[in-house]
């Protein structure tokens, strides 16, 4: 084999006192998909930033196509054919697809005349090469997240990228879209491009990657061909310890029916004819493809977009939920997806975040009781094992998993009867994921009814007592827990139009 496309040797990097990378070795061959795996904080992001020229390493060498590169800048990395596709595409929403692609690829003076037909034709060709049917004249704001990722990939191809880094590209994609992306990745590989593929989803890695390098605590702990590894072995490499069970088993028998949803719909958010019930102590999984209406249903149940038809009954009492305040008063709690934006307030301390939903009961005179707030926060920090400097630390200083625990703590503090969790483990590393799963089990055992929304199919299968599957804004099936993935996926793909009549 010729010299690798990219070779990193003994890379080190520190930020202040924190050593983010402590000797990383990595190499990428042409026509290879090389997965990079590690818990959050293992050094993946730092490594990418070094390869794309955003950060300078403190030590070690970077070799691109046999040449040692020093002082890599973003522009130099671009010129060397290194491109990075981020989870959140960095496109200009108000410009068209063709304009976005041209901005990356067209050189020349700011005052040159634009050849619009050529610009559109080039965009069209690049998109066609990866099998994307996106109109070059569409404004990027009208595209879905995966379509935007495809535009990014088209840009990378157009720039003649030899090394493509993909950072959790499927995190927000539906099942179908994921498969489209896999095809694109395989196509890139077939064309001799080296792909560095980062993902928390192990099944993807087994499906796509040729080799995998595991990072742990800023060091590469090994590079292996994927077909020599098992899932358990890979997890063991990542966390450095054996994880006996990926999902904790159910420990409780669900009690009486707590929530009954009967033929509920909300025209504004596209939810229609939804009926199901959840029992106390039960984990009711909500599966389905992204865009199937799961989050929309949760928002209806929580009074954010009130239902305009059907009936919601909680413990025998009919509810009409018109606002989150009413939902909270009835013992409902909703931990939203996208915790960085809505689940927690990053600038505020942990303690303020924990008490945010219980101002009225905790501060009956509206005079803040800092002592009570602090001890409540400490209780949750201990109980949920939040790794932090203390209750006064801003939530933004925590890792993703710990931020999620704070978001959970806010709602557990309301002493809810029904907890709706929307993608509770998205972007959370494997260790913290297990902790959150055990926590959900414990809450169910304590009698809490849990609605668990997740795009991670194994999570829905492994955690739920029963599984509701949504498609096209309505519930298409209610399956027993431990159903196989195929049954759930079949229900999620069947888009019944019958409800619309």
């Amino acid at each position, binding site marked *: 084999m010729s010299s690798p496309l990219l070779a990193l040797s003994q890379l080190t990097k520190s930020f202040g006192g924190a050593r983010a990378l402590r000797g990383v070795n990595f190499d990428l061959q042409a026509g290879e998909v090389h997965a990079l795996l590690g818990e959050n904080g293992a050094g993946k992001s730092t490594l990418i930033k070094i390869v794309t020229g955003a950060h300078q390493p403190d030590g070690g060498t970077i070799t691109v196509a046999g040449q040692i590169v020093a002082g890599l800048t973003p522009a130099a990395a671009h010129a060397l054919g290194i491109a990075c596709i981020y989870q959140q595409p960095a496109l200009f929403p108000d410009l068209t697809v063709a304009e976005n692609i041209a901005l990356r690829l067209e050189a020349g003076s700011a005052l040159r005349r634009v050849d619009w037909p050529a610009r559109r034709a080039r965009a069209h060709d690049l998109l066609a090469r990866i099998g994307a049917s996106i109109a070059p004249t569409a404004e990027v704001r009208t595209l879905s997240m995966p379509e935007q990722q495809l535009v990014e990939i088209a840009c990378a191809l157009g720039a003649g990228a030899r090394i493509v880094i993909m950072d959790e590209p499927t995190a927000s994609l539906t099942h179908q879209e994921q498969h489209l992306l896999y095809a694109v990745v395989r196509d890139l590989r077939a064309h001799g491009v080296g792909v560095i593929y980062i993902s928390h989803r192990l099944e993807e890695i087994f499906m796509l990657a040729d080799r995998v390098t595991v990072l742990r605590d800023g060091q590469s702990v090994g590079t292996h061909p994927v077909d020599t590894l098992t899932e358990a072995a890979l997890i063991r490499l990542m966390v450095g310890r054996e994880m006996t069970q990926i999902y904790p088993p159910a420990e409780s028998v669900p009690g009486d029916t707590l929530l009954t949803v009967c033929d509920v719909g909300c025209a504004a958010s596209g939810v229609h004819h939804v009926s199901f019930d959840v029992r106390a102590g039960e984990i009711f999984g909500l599966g389905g493809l992204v865009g199937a209406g799961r989050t929309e249903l949760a928002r209806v149940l929580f009074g954010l977009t009130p239902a305009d038809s059907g009936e919601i009954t909680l413990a025998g009492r009919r509810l009409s939920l018109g606002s*989150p305040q009413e939902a909270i008063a009835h013992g409902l709690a909703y931990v939203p997806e996208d915790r960085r934006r809505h*689940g927690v307030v990053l600038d505020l301390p942990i303690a*303020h975040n924990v008490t945010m*939903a219980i101002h*009225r009961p905790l501060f009956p005179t509206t005079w803040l009781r800092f002592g009570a707030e602090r001890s409540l926060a400490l209780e949750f920090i201990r109980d949920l094992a939040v790794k932090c400097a203390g209750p006064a630390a801003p939530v*933004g*200083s925590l890792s993703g998993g710990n931020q999620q625990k704070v978001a959970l703590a806010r709602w557990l503090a309301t002493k809810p009867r029904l907890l709706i969790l929307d993608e509770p483990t998205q972007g959370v590393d494997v260790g913290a994921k297990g902790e959150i799963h055990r926590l959900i089990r414990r809450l169910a055992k304590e009698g809490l009814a849990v609605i668990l929304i997740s795009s991670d199919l194994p999570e829905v299968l492994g955690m739920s007592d029963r599984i509701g599957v949504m498609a096209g804004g309505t519930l298409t099936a209610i399956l027993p827990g431990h159903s196989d993935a195929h049954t759930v996926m079949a229900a999620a793909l069947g888009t019944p139009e019958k409800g619309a009549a």
Partner: protein
Amino acid sequence: MKTYFRELSVAAALGVVLLALAVFAPAFYQPQPLLSLLTREAPTLVVACGMALVIISRQIDISVGSQFSVCSVCAGLLAARGWPIYLVLPASAACGAFLGAINGALVAGLRLPSIVVTLATMVTLRQGLNLVRQGEFVNLPDGIQWLGLGQTAGQWLIVLTALGLLVAFGLALRHLAAGRLVYAIGSDAEAARLAGLRPQLSTFLVFVLLGALTGLAALLNVAQSPQVQPLSGSGLELKVIAAVVVGGVAISGGRGNLWGAFAGLLLLACVAPALTHLHVEAYWEKAIQGAIILLAVVADGLRSRKGGHR
């Protein structure tokens, strides 16, 4: 200590200026001119209290100058009709609260950007006042100037009122659940809504509060002279926003407190007398104030670049 670094550094800068004045121009510390200085700044301080709340909740109100003028003229006209001071005062505050409610309803109710809304109300109120009053002054009857007291007593009352409001609002912001809410909506309004709080209502009320404080401040200003100028509030918005920003309230919301705003206001207010006492030409006043604002903004910018977690 680290949490209040920004506020403390403004206070330290103020301390340096005051110390320099003590060494080089002890005349600055004569009681009567000092009291006059504080009295002149008292209305600005009262408006700054409200403005800090608005900016912490990630909004802005640039119509306060026009509100101030309208309230001043209303208060003057009511007083000229023979209303006693204890009725003119709440009337002026109510007038301000009404004007604030217009801004608040447009910003919170229709979710319009506050800079555009208050730009529109600023121009509308100012030109409306011009049209109605044609630039006429209002002569005040006895019993209004210095709030019906002697000059010194009146000045003390004005200064203490302003300081009292500062302390009350400063404590409320830290110790009341409502104060916490102001920070929460300034940091992330959607997160606050999902936590069952009411960001739109809070935003509305913060604008009403700023209006009421502006009305009060207008009266504290009216009471300092025998007649009401029709455009007494012009330029006030810039002065107030500058004081608040210099004092460490983040223009992007969610950060800052009234103590910092107070220190910022005093620092800017000290420039003019310091120049006089140090025999520097008064032309330098605006340039130095501008430099202070720039310094504060640059410091905030560097800080958020270094410590930001986004």
